[in-house]
């Protein structure tokens, strides 16, 4: 069974961005200010311990629009618990990420 990771400031920021509706790796970088070499490894680690889940959008829909399909990320219940712990530890997390939503395609996967 995967162990719940220690909540670090960057992981709390990533979870906060996901909780606020940002769904793509590069959008998370934009709103958290974290570099790409930090965000992706964090997303993978959080996904491996069940705090984040990801899906690919439909290839068909993307191909129809002449663009590549994108991978979406979403925070899970486990992730919410970890985020709450993160907010207790790092008070600035909530303010560091502005509210918003990624431009999720209309045909994004059903969660």
């Amino acid at each position, binding site marked *: 069974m995967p162990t719940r*990771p220690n909540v670090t400031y960057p992981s709390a920021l990533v979870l906060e961005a996901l909780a606020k509706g940002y769904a*793509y*790796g*590069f959008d998370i*970088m934009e709103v958290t200010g974290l*570099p*790409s*070499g*930090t*965000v*992706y*490894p964090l997303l*993978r*680690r959080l996904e491996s311990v069940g705090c984040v889940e990801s899906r690919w959008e439909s290839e068909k829909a993307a191909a129809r629009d*002449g*663009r*590549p*399909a*994108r*991978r979406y990320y979403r925070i899970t219940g486990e992730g919410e618990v970890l985020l709450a712990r993160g907010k207790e530890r790092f008070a600035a997390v909530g303010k560091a990420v502005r509210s918003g939503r990624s431009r999720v395609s209309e045909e994004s996967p059903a969660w």
Partner: protein
Amino acid sequence: MVSDDEVRATPLLAVARTIVAVASLVVPAEQRDEWTREWNAELWYLHDSLVRDDRLTIAEHARFLLRASGSLVDAVQLSTGDMQAWRESFVEVGARWWRRSPVVATALLFLSLGIAADAMLIAFARALVEYPSATWAGLAPSTRGLTIGVAALVGVSLLVASVVVTAQLLGGVGATTEHRTRERRAELLLAAVITAWVAHAVATYGAIAIPNETPEWQAPPDLNAMLTHAWLATWLCALLLLAVLRRHRRGAGAM
């Protein structure tokens, strides 16, 4: 309106994709396709928004490529597993390498030490040539020349010796499976980062510490650039030598 083909054809995106393609070499084979697809897709969207909003300034070019180079870090992390441990302690990584393969760990240690020392020697020798008054207060030109010569000789010997030892040690490791090749690439990449870090740290601390001891010393203004060039040149030579030695070994084995 910018067409999709125009967006795809931009050299900036091609460079970024090349970075991702290079990084993908160290990603485990079973994850490589999906990993590459995700990075390329995200870069495409970012690039697309920059082109459509006409924001492709020099600064945005640099920022874009910096983001693409994050794929290298991501790839190494995927390849080497749990990176939190090595972030916290280089010693742990060394121990893990040692447990997995003492021979490879020793080979990498030799190569790293050789390259780090060599890069520092080359940078120092260059500093002597370009800033003789700053680094050589009161030393005769003949002595200066001799010292530079000795430094160059030691540098080259050090590089050749460390590469030969590395090739010998790596040659002794059994069959090269795809898994091992991937690990070797990741380790070499990590060794490159460590040597760069060590060389820069030593040079920076050296440049700060020496003036306190010797009032006439002035650190060259571009010491870090010198060191980076020396480090790149040393790595290039080391990899070239390694390739030649491996080819030679294969040739000998085929006979």
